[in-house]
């Protein structure tokens, strides 16, 4: 890679290596993370470097190994559990919702669960209905969880460390379609505040509020809009639960307009929540109704043209924004 260009995959891998090197309580487990090298080659060679105690291949047993991760966290370890893709996460959702998310409160503060669960997510590789889910909204509904979404190289590289320091369960969504993408890492990051959203581009005409694969798509759209003289701000939510409401409100209070963009299907989504919060906090500041550009309400089909049609594309972001600005 020329200069300081780095792939999103390499960002995740470096984050994991750093975590394993920095704390011997950290270990990683999941399906095919070891001998196979990770379903998406994220953990390639880590088994060789750290050995089978730190990089544990598990059988196909999502509920089992997530539950074991919770137990290991209770027992003083700092497990990184990889669910190969979000599509298999429902098998472990009872463990996550009923154990990881509730134990601290239910035990009156006695038992916290310092567990990190990483999952590949997102659509865009023609994997069809059962392998293309965007289930961020399901996790973001559950009290007791912290839910992160790594929509940029920066977050892929630097979110894991603070997640591991969090005494409570943290879910990290990573995006398969970004894995091969190269980008620069910002200088001097190294510590990320995982309670804060981040303005990825400042602008004064409208706030594009997004996360995950929506971030680069929105930045692309913003660049195109700039050519038409429209100055869009791009807010990367990053933390889907608990939402950083202040950053959202601050942005919309400045721009007076908002478009929320996400791949997940529209009903009962992150976008719904963001829209409702803007309604509650910024109603009198709005120059136009907040709009949502979300995934279609459909199981994702296999062919490229239908898959593309199922989630927002930069061109739609551009046209939606032009539309909002024309009518306001």
């Amino acid at each position, binding site marked *: 890679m020329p200069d300081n260009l780095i792939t999103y995959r390499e960002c995740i891998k470096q984050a994991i290596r750093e975590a394993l090197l920095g704390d011997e309580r950290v270990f990683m487990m999941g399906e095919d993370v070891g001998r196979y090298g990770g379903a998406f080659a994220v953990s390639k060679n880590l088994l060789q470097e750290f050995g089978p105690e730190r990089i544990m291949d598990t059988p196909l047993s999502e509920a089992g190994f997530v539950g074991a991760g*919770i137990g290991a*966290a209770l027992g003083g370890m700092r497990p990184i559990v990889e669910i190969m893709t979000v599509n298999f996460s429902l098998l472990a959702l009872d463990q996550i919702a009923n*154990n990881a998310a509730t134990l601290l409160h239910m*035990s009156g503060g*006695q038992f916290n669960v310092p567990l990190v669960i990483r999952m590949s997510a997102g659509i865009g590789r023609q994997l069809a209905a059962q392998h293309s889910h965007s289930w961020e909204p399901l996790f973001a509904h559950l009290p*007791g969880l912290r839910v992160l979404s790594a929509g940029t190289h920066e977050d892929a590289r630097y979110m894991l460390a603070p997640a591991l320091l969090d005494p409570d369960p943290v879910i990290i969504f990573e995006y398969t379609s970004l894995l091969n993408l190269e980008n620069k890492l910002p200088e001097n990051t190294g510590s990320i505040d995982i309670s804060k959203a981040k303005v990825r581009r400042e602008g004064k005409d409208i706030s594009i509020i997004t996360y995950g694969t929506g971030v680069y798509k929105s930045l692309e759209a913003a660049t195109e809009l700039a050519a038409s003289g429209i100055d869009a701000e791009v807010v990367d939510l990053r933390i889907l639960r608990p939402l950083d409401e202040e950053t959202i409100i601050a942005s919309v209070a400045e721009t007076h307009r908002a478009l929320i963009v996400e791949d997940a299907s529209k009903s009962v989504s992150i976008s719904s929540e963001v829209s409702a919060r803007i309604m509650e906090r910024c109603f009198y500041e709005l120059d136009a109704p907040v709009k949502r550009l979300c995934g279609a309400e459909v199981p994702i089909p296999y062919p490229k043209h239908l898959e593309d049609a199922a989630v927002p594309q930069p061109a739609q972001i551009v046209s939606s924004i032009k539309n909002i600005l024309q009518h306001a």
Partner: protein
Amino acid sequence: MAQEPATAKPLTREQAQKLLYQMVLIRKFEEMSAEMYTKTKIRGFLHLYIGEEAVAVGVMQSLGTEDNVLCTYREHGHALVRGLDPKIIMAEMYGKQEGCSRGRGGSMHLFDAKTRFYGGNAIVAGHLAMAVGMALADKKMKRNGLTCCFFGEGAIAEGAFHEAMNLAALWQVPVLFVCENNFYAMGTALRYTHAQTDLTLKGAAYGIASAAVDGMDLLAVMQAADTASDTVRNTGKPYLLVCNTYRFRAHSMFDAELYREKSEVEEWKKRDPIPGFYNYLMLQQLLTADDFKAMEIQAENEVQEAVDFAETCSWEPVEELTKYTYSENAS
């Protein structure tokens, strides 16, 4: 019911009486709980362990303080035997903040960090994989403890059981799986829950050593549990111990018991573990009738004190509702 098992471990008078006392205390504590339930002091679900006392008492004596214990929602007995103060258990069941879970959990969710008592888990079979993970942590951290996980025979039908057994066996971690087979999962009899009703055969599917024991016979349970715990400690591998037992009461307070004959319950009551062990101790001259009277009075007093304590305890202020949803909210 007072037959001596093959190789009973020689008991001192003190040990023997302590064990009997534990069973009596559970019995009295739960009878009082039922009463307090009808007086609406206790609410929600209440699952009584009456009839099954020999299992918790017999297994728990094989454990040490460094071991972890996980139970189901039917765990008052286990909590008592593990050493939680009856006062903080009763306060918990009242929902008072002096309770062992700050009143947040109630009967189904007793937790106590000091005694490594990890609940009180109310999703059937939901705690089995956690137990495997706790044992994994012990193994990784080279600590000596084992993890003891109690569950009902109904739990064995859940996929969670299968995954936990396989992982424990694959990873060779020290978990003592204790199946409390009381022959019913709510109203569903063993034969309607499992195609294969010999539950020890389940162990073989994972290469896990298994044994079954008469769970109404305290000495038999103790011996089986000692063997099981020793095996887990010596091999570092999991073990499945099936204790065949019976609950004399309804599944919970919302159960008309339509699914079993009264006569069946009466048959099992003849095998009540308390008179069973009582008779044995009398025969062995390790107990007198007066000892037992005193024991009953002591247990009644402890239970009454627990109720008195719970009555005087306080409600958590509503302002603290969301405290401990996340650790940073902790004071």
